[in-house]
């Protein structure tokens, strides 16, 4: 087998369909990390995220003969598949939130007392703020902002109304804004 790194996604899929197992490995190497991150945004558990992506690749191999759709756009296809698998995973474990949940009210004072604010810190704080959103709110936010899903797609995936999706987005932004403005104020650093 020659150097696979130069082979295009499209050719990889054609060769995968022909049963060339080295192409599966190449797709795996290209997409595994990104797909695991996508799954992690949904399930919030690194081990489970990896399992979901592993299973996706097994299914990809087992159903290789039927891979018509992916031609030319294997990246988006795999990402969509991993999103669906993550949602199914949450659904099977009854982890799709059934209510809006409460926005956290307390801010840990020690987190806010740091005098220096750099971009790494700001990033970490934004990420932990996303993690502290109520689960439904977090999922909606992640699906909309990071997974580029439409409100309609999100509504269908979570079995809620598009109106609820909008409300959750407003709620997420309001919380992040308030959380960060207070933080920036206390940190004494304005951008």
């Amino acid at each position: 087998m020659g150097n696979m790194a130069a082979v295009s996604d499209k050719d990889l899929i054609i060769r995968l369909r022909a049963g060339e197992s080295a192409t599966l490995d190449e797709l795996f190497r290209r997409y595994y990390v990104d797909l695991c991150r996508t799954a992690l945004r949904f399930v919030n558990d690194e081990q489970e995220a990896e399992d979901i992506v592993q299973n996706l690749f097994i299914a990809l191999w087992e159903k290789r003969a039927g891979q018509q759709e992916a031609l030319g756009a294997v990246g988006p296809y795999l990402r969509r598949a991993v999103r669906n698998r993550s949602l199914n995973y949450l659904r099977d474990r009854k982890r799709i939130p059934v209510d809006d949940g409460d926005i956290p009210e307390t801010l840990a004072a020690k987190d806010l007392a740091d005098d220096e604010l750099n971009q790494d810190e700001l990033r970490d704080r934004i990420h932990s703020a996303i993690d502290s959103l109520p689960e439904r709110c977090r999922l909606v936010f992640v699906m909309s902002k990071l997974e580029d899903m439409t409100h309609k797609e999100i509504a269908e995936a979570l079995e809620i109304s598009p109106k609820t999706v909008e409300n959750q987005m407003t709620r997420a932004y309001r919380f992040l804004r308030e959380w960060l403005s207070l933080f920036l104020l206390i940190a004494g650093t304005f951008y």
Partner: protein
Amino acid sequence: MNTSDIKGFDQHVSSYKEGFTPDSTGALARLHAQMEKSTIKTDSVVRPINRFRWLSAAAVVLLLVTAGYFLLAGEGGTEYNNTSDAPMAVALPDGTKVLLQEGSTLSYPVDYNDTERHVDLSGQAFFEVHKDKDRPFLVNTSETELRVTGTAFNLRINGEEMEVEVSEGSVELHRQGHITPVKARQCGIAVPGKKCTRMEATNLNRHAWRTGTLTFDSMPLSLALKTISNNFGLEIKVPTTCDFPLTGNFDGKNPIAVLETIAAMDGGNLKQLAVDRYQLSDMVCGK
């Protein structure tokens, strides 16, 4: 102030979970190993499960032809009595899944799932309750009622004592008009004549008989032994004056080995007194 006023806000949002960089070389090796396994399996689920679950799954199959049995209880209800020496998987008519511990009995009436889902349990079981908001899933002792709409939990009922440890979602304990909500990784306990109590159960040790994992984090020995004894139906003797904080992860699928390890960690040893009766002896008690 708007989020767009915060420099780099959108970039920082888009890097959410990007810090996670799994080892794709090792993962690829695992994929190959799994694919070899999956070629001989018909099951579509190929994610790794631990050995204990494999064993119990195998045992469940065995059960179908050996000791576990179910019979029609009074007035057309159904009763499962696990007389075997392995956990028994039971599927209820609404799709709820139950893993019934050895020596435990589960029954439900003929009108189960009409307007509610009422079961009786004596012993211990793990429930994954099918979500149905309109038909509450209920388990009673004479004073306390456990109410669930859809969640996963370990439940032990010993006479009038009820102990529920929740792994997913939440449940409620109702007693004389008082409601005690119990969330994931908490444990609720109901004993006759007392208010229901609730405690943190971070390590889900009460699931050990099923998961094979026991984790103690500076847990007093007495409480650790109580957990093991309740979980596996063992009587464990230790001098009452002997108590010290215990820390460690144990392979919980063999409680006897765990007890042997605990004894050895403290310089003592384990003696078997009778069937399901053990004693920790010659302990130095953390000294």
